[in-house]
């Protein structure tokens, strides 16, 4: 049998079926975060749609839609019966409008966290830690 990998080595995807965000969107966002964070090297395989659907307890189409969206963004290559393979994504350059949109969303997310009771300093610390992590993530996935 396969030895149990250390917890730190395992990319974990988490969703909340009770969230107002559609499940496929949560899968896309979580997988994208893992991909950006360098959890998968180009050529690495993701679970098949069926495997992911079984483990999450959601419809196959939900997972398939998430994979299709990520393939459309250039992260994955989809092959029938072979699941999804991570591919080398061409470097992207966001324009000023896109960057401004991102900053606005980040501002809103931080405000929501603070409104929900997360300490302001804690939010700042978390954002700094996230920025540090991104700096050290694998460049070839960007």
């Amino acid at each position: 049998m396969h030895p149990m990998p250390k917890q730190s080595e395992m990319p974990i995807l988490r969703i909340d079926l009770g969230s107002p965000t559609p499940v496929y969107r949560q899968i896309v966002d979580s997988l994208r975060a893992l991909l950006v964070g360098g959890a998968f090297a180009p050529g690495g395989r993701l679970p098949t749609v069926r495997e992911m659907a079984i483990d999450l307890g959601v419809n196959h189409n939900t997972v398939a839609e998430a994979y299709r969206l990520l393939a459309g963004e250039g992260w994955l290559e989809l092959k029938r019966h072979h699941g999804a393979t991570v591919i080398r994504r061409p470097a992207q350059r966001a324009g000023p409008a896109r960057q401004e949109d991102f900053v606005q969303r980040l501002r809103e997310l931080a405000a929501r966290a603070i409104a929900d009771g997360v300490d302001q300093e804690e939010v700042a610390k978390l954002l700094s830690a996230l920025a540090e992590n991104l700096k050290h993530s694998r460049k070839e996935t960007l």
Partner: protein
Amino acid sequence: MAVFPGLALLTARLTRPDIFFSFTVEPSLRQSAAGRAVLRQFSRMVIFSSLIGLALTLSGVFGGLTPAPAVALILGGAAVEFAGMLAAYATARRRVRPYKAEPSRQREVVVKPRPTRPVGGWLGQAGPFLILGLGALCLWWRWDAIPGRFPIHWDLYGRPNGWAIKSGRSVFGSVLLGTLICLVLSLLLNGTARGVRRIHSSGLDGERESRFLRTMMLMVLGLEYYMAAMFGFCPILPPWLVAVFVVAGLLMGAAIVVVACWSGQGGWRLRGQTPASPGGDQAPAGDRTPDECWKWGLIYYNSADPAVWVEKRFGIGWTLNFGNPRAWFITGGILLFAAGVSVLSILLLQK
């Protein structure tokens, strides 16, 4: 008569902490006064009905009656015991129902393809079939040493109670039977290993679940090896070796019970290396299946769930999701296999 009540009493205590008589509950319920009262009543009802059943059965066996009333008493005893266990289970469920909790809506999964290598590796999987092949070779090589009438079935004491007349069909029929049994076990083993849903993927619970799955799969693989050795060599087994096999079989059965008690369903009773996840105001995890899709808490039917195999809610191991069409194929296949084995055994068995 003692085994099933004993298993029922154990099973009620071995389910996941947040699954109690097939309902999702707060993990603290089982240890609470209310939970202990439910378990006590369940235990009393099971033991009481078992004692009455046992008394009826013993009356039938030792009462010196004519066959018809004796058989009626024996069957009646078994029926009383079974009905008592069902009534105890239904009563416990009625008492637990008010404590039902909404399971967590959070899901987590390890983003990693499932291994394509079979359980135990290719060599481990091939082992039973190599043993059967070796057995067939030995039978052919030692054909003259096989008696004209040889045993093919033994009682619990290792005494033969089923025989076959020596012929190509009967001698190699047992090897064929063993091959079919090992093939079906292998398919079930690998199908289950690849198709079960992981409830926890990280932390202590994830580690426990991995170990539980690994242990159960290896036990089934061990059973395959046992069957291969038995069926591969049974026409030429000396009596002392048959006794060894019978003892080994009983020990395997005992080991399965011990492992089940030690690990609990999903491995929740195992100790782990990873620190436990921090507690908090989290809803019970549940087993990722809705309570309302469990019929009487024993049969799972959910056509919206893509899983074919799900964890049992009362018992150790997994059961089929009958809302998935593949489950019906598997069930049909198992029934066909059982019928085929029975027919084959009858053809081989000649007193």
